[in-house]
């Protein structure tokens, strides 16, 4: 079999897995069988993964930072290969995730979203603008495309679309809507408009992203502001990243805490940063993903995000340590 055939065959199998994951019969094949075949293929077809396997042994995780310096793919990358790019400052090296087609991304994102929120024909709005090469923008666009009514409330160029906001307000007085926003976008909107009541069955889904907020409010204050602005809506969080084709979702529990859960085709482990061995529930460590939807790139991805397993299949997310350029400096050392 050629490399293209191997990859195509695996993509088909992952596609079937995703399509059947939530069915009453369960997925088309066992997760571990598909994982083993996919890892063997990645070791053969992905030069970066090949090096990591040779140097570390076993089936290592690929750190998200590796995506900044190497094309992590099982296929040749050309100037025309589409990619998603991580956000960052202008001086920062950005990570790129190359892909050949968005089929698996769309299958993974939409299947999980529909399973969690059963949107039906619920109108979908976004405070996140349609930025190029942004996986978040792409995901929201997928959801908006699948909705009967949708609209961007925030335009490229830093202006609100007042007509779209008015339209959302008019719809949301009658029936539920889904509103996507980064936490920063949500905060700016709430500060600007103060009040924008939505139907109480509406979802306000934040996609993380405190970055750029000078003084991010504590979570309880933030939630209070959300309900002050939008009324007693339902709240959820989305946790994804450029390097992954799958997302995690969480609904806020009674303590105002998010307990995240991945879809069935993606597993989460928490690893000790020094040894990279799995941490038991309750012990904080690095969040690591085994995402079958990443079959074209790297299935096993290690992040710098800190989290903790809860023991019930969910995990807590504590965020990322402050960056090296943010750390303090001393006179003597």
């Amino acid at each position: 079999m050629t490399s293209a055939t191997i990859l195509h065959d695996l993509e088909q199998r992952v596609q079937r897995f995703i399509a059947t994951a939530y069915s009453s019969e369960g997925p088309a094949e066992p997760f571990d069988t598909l994982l083993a075949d996919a890892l063997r293929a990645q070791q053969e077809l992905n030069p970066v993964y090949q090096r990591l396997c040779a140097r570390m042994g076993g089936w290592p995780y690929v750190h998200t930072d590796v995506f900044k310096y190497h094309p992590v793919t099982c296929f040749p990358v050309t100037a025309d290969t589409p990619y998603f790019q991580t956000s960052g400052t202008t001086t920062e090296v950005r990570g790129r995730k190359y892909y050949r087609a968005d089929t698996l991304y769309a299958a993974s994102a939409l299947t999980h979203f529909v399973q969690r929120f059963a949107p039906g024909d619920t109108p979908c709005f976004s405070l996140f603008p349609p930025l190029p090469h942004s996986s978040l923008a792409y995901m929201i666009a997928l959801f908006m495309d699948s909705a009967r009514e949708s609209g961007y409330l925030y335009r490229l160029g830093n202006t609100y679309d007042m007509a779209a906001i008015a339209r959302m307000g008019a719809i949301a007085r009658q029936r539920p809507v889904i509103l996507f926003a980064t936490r920063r976008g949500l905060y700016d909107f709430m500060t600007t408009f103060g009040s924008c009541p939505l139907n109480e069955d509406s979802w306000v889904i934040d996609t993380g992203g405190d970055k750029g907020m000078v003084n991010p409010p504590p979570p309880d204050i933030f939630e209070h502001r959300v309900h002050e602005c939008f009324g007693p809506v339902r709240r959820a969080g989305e946790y994804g990243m450029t390097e992954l084709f799958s997302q995690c979702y969480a609904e806020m529990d009674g303590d105002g805490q998010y307990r995240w859960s991945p879809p069935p085709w993606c597993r989460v482990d928490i690893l000790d940063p020094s040894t990279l061995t799995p941490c038991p529930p309750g012990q904080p460590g690095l969040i690591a993903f085994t995402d079958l939807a990443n079959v074209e790139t790297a299935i096993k991805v290690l992040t710098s995000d800190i989290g903790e397993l809860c023991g019930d299949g969910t995990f807590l997310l504590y965020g990322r340590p402050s960056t090296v350029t943010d750390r303090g400096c001393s006179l003597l050392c």
Partner: protein
Amino acid sequence: MLRERDLELQGVQRHTAAKPGPELLTFLHNLQRDRDELVDMIVAATGYSVAQVARILDTFLAETASGPVPAAPEQVWSRVLVVLAGNTFVLPLQVLCRCADLPGNLALTLKPASDQATLVAAYAARFPRPVQLVADVPDYNTYDRVVVYGSDATIRALSARVEPARFVPRGHRFAIGVVDVSDGRSRLLQEETLIAAIADDVTLFRQSGCLSLNSLFIGSTKPGGSNEGKEHKPSASSISAAPAPKRSEGWAEQFCARLSEAIAARAEALPFEDQVFACQRRQTALADEQTQVFEHVILTEEPRYLLSRGNLLTVYPFADPERILATLGPLAERVQGIALAPWPETVPAWIARTSASYVCPFGRLQFPPLSWAEDNEPWSAVIGKHVVFSHQGPTPHIATRGA
């Protein structure tokens, strides 16, 4: 052989020959007297081991007692606030030492980080002058000078609250080391003392400060490299050969392996955040075709994380000093200290193209003298008023009209 004093004369360092005054000696005596108590307090505040703290504190006290101190300005500002935001445990000591024996009625106020408040209070209690400690500052502009040691984020935040004329920011910096193997100096690499000194510069403060060694450059500063070196394959090109040779071949790999062992032997358990960064760097290096990763040392040709921490040293080869500057790129403006081996006979010209304010042999990076002009700004300029007193004499004849 170039002495550090010569560097001063050539404008690279600005030491002064002043000796510790009575207040400083009293302060050092008090610290020495209560050394064991202070070690316990520092261990409690930082999580460092007793041995590590004792080693650092003893060295600091000895070096400060014998080293040059900053030149005292004729007048100092009356109200000086020093913000100590997330620094190492020696920084407050350094600040207090520099404020000893100053003329005038300096009212010194320290704003320590919350986790160091008790420790800084203990230091201040042993200082011969009264020092005010504050947890909050309602109005920064009531001080004549506001010196801020902290992260770039802290500097940014406070710059909005302090008038520029009063503000003395001390943001993020880092240190590099350069080992020159040209002219047969490759034998240096066999010296255990050099390896030990580099390992100390890496580990003493867990790579968490602006003079901690994060990046090491090994190569030749002379065109053509070393004759002796060629026998032992020490030229930069052998390091940069890709794919890299097996570990058993070539001194560079052996050197890195020995350095890694030395760092491991000195390294203490790192805080969680530092472990995360070390993991990040190691994983990135492992994925690179050009690099070799030892336990604590990455041998690489490409720049990766010059501003990082976690007891992981990045080693870069270089064929001439231009390569060092090219690797540093814009970060050359963030270099605070440079360690050199062997100690040169003349000041390397390329150093003037970095922002380095402290150049020293390996092993001394962590203990600059009090007279160190941090960020190229002498302490006397930070805290001193610059008033020119006119000499007494006849009033000059002032022309009634121009020529």
